[in-house]
């Protein structure tokens, strides 16, 4: 029996799952305020001499000026997702909230009760069990992996994965402390706010849906990115060794993607779109170049980049990008999309899904 490094469903040969899961709809909510990188860098306390836009490719990000917190962003995205699906909230069996930030009532971080019970109540999901899952920027895809497993095993029929990231305040705090390009808070300046939600349900016979979902934690690197509540300001601060994280991600991702391709019985050239975690345009391109070099070929299209418009929106980034691509008409029905999580931990996860007509139709594309 082939052993996989990833914890994932074993694919067609050893499949013990009676069902498959599909993504029915995706929702997002973006704050209305655009903050350009130039505007953000103009707020730094020290003269940093950093050309952040050139380094990261981030032109602007959306930020809440206090009108939205993690709870509002998550709730708005959940409602958007449900409205697009035409599904009633009381049909949900489970609501999983996955944000890093759990700000409610301003910059108050809530540990108990869960964010998920508050969101479930706000959207009217009265029959849903609720819990929060935390896995840094891999939170949403980790929850998709758990929910995919539950749906495949018939333990639930339908569930919502949701996240609200009011995380731009880490950038506000970092602007007070960053002195030069070597600062470990540089990554905080790339962050943007967003809410995102994915509705998963049991797929009808013949619908491909999610074919593989697998994850691993490369824990030798667990201390490369650490975030704590700030001691001097409201909100939090994050300290990252970005180059080391990126180096490991570039080296490890192709090996794991090959496992997923083998499990799905496809080649890299069968993948139409790859959406990696959006940290910087340069990082996304480097990871894709690494994949192409190691696997000898690449996916059908260039890697999706939305970080230039939205910044790094933490756990919501894949959903924000997926919706962007669907609404722009760059994803066709039947296409295979690989969502690749790369997050502090070091968490690496891959979700392989086939986008169907219903999902696209919910974003205004009638094929």
């Amino acid at each position: 029996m082939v052993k996989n490094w990833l914890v994932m469903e074993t694919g067609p040969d050893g499949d013990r799952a009676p069902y498959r899961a599909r993504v029915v709809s995706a929702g997002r909510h973006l704050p209305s305020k655009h903050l350009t990188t130039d505007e953000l860098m103009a707020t730094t306390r020290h003269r940093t001499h950093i050309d952040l836009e050139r380094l990261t490719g981030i032109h602007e990000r959306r930020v809440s000026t206090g009108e939205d917190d993690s709870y509002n962003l998550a709730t708005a995205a959940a409602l958007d997702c449900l409205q697009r699906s035409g599904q009633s909230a009381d049909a949900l069996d489970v609501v999983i909230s996955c944000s890093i930030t759990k700000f409610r009532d301003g910059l108050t971080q809530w540990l108990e009760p869960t964010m998920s019970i508050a969101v479930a109540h706000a959207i009217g999901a009265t029959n849903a069990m609720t819990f929060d899952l935390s896995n840094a920027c891999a939170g949403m895809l980790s929850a998709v992996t758990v929910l995919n497993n539950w749906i495949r095993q018939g333990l639930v029929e339908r569930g919502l994965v949701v996240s609200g990231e009011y995380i731009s305040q880490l950038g506000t705090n970092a602007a007070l402390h960053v002195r030069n390009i070597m600062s470990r808070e540089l990554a905080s300046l790339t962050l943007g706010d967003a809410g995102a939600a994915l509705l998963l349900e049991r797929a009808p016979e013949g619908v491909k849906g999610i074919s593989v979902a697998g994850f691993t934690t490369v824990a030798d690197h667990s201390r490369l990115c650490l975030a704590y509540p700030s001691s001097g300001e409201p909100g939090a601060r994050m300290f990252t060794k970005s180059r080391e994280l990126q180096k490991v991600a570039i080296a490890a991702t192709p090996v794991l993607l090959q496992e997923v391709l083998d499990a799905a019985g496809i080649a890299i050239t069968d993948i139409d779109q790859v959406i990696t975690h959006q940290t910087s345009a340069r990082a996304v391109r480097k990871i894709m170049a690494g994949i192409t070099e190691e696997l000898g070929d690449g996916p059908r299209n260039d890697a999706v980049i939305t970080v230039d418009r939205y910044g790094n929106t933490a756990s919501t980034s894949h959903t924000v990008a997926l919706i962007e691509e669907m609404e722009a008409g760059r994803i066709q029905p039947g296409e295979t999309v690989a969502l690749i999580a790369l997050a502090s931990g070091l968490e690496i996860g891959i979700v392989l899904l086939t986008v169907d007509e219903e999902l696209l139709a919910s974003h205004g594309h009638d094929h």
Partner: protein
Amino acid sequence: MGTIIDHQSFISHGWRTRHSALRLAVSASRTCLEAAGCPPNDVDLLINAGLYRDRNLGEPALAALIQEDIGANTEDPHPDTHGTFSFDLSNGVCGVLTALQIADGFLRAGTAQRVLVVASDANPGHGLSKDFPFAAAGGALLCRWSDDESGLGKVRWANFFDDAESYRSTVSVEKGRNVLRVEHSATADEQFAVAAAKVARECLDVASVDLADVDLVLAAPPHPDFTATLASHLGFPAQRICVAHDSRTHTAALIGALHEALSARRIQAGSNVLLLAAGAGITAGAALYRTPKHPIE
């Protein structure tokens, strides 16, 4: 067929661990794995359900740090062997039951062979909390799939939304510092017990099991008022409800209850046990657990 708990461990704080949920979790995990004769590399999935941690760490998942410190497949991915997937979940005192439910899905699928569920809490230290109410304690459960009639039944959940009136914990700025605060109402335990009794009945109804056939209830939180009200509302003898020894145990309380029951030899092979937890939200969960024929350690 079902998910069984092969081994458990539960530890209270020592001098070195009183301010470190991480050290408590690592210590509990090591103890559990050593007792099971299970090398850390055999753990496929590590779920941490603990909440109150060193310096109120927000990222990464504490589970990743636990995985590194116990040495479970920490190195970069390589072919022909398996790695470990770690993440945190939070559901307060119900977190361990939620983690068991997630473990059950992965074990059922054959996606994981061994799952380690960990929970620990400790004062975050550095003056970052105000009147921290919980004991420094940690526990671990090593789970696997069993093909006999033992194991975890379907987990039943119910929410009774109270807009955080009964129980809340937050981190917010006070006098220029972000400080953790835990607040609860005077009637919180009573409300939790009422919710727990309701979900317990639903769980038993769904499984078509009489309350009289339940040998022992393992319950959390381990508060005397909760236990007394639960016994009364459930119509079940209080002496057959087992909770963690220290009433200040929080997320690890269900593991503490199991530890207590095993230490007192209150669980036999083939016992019908009801796992029951209720906490902030209000969220309550219940599941029947038929203990394996071999003794749990």
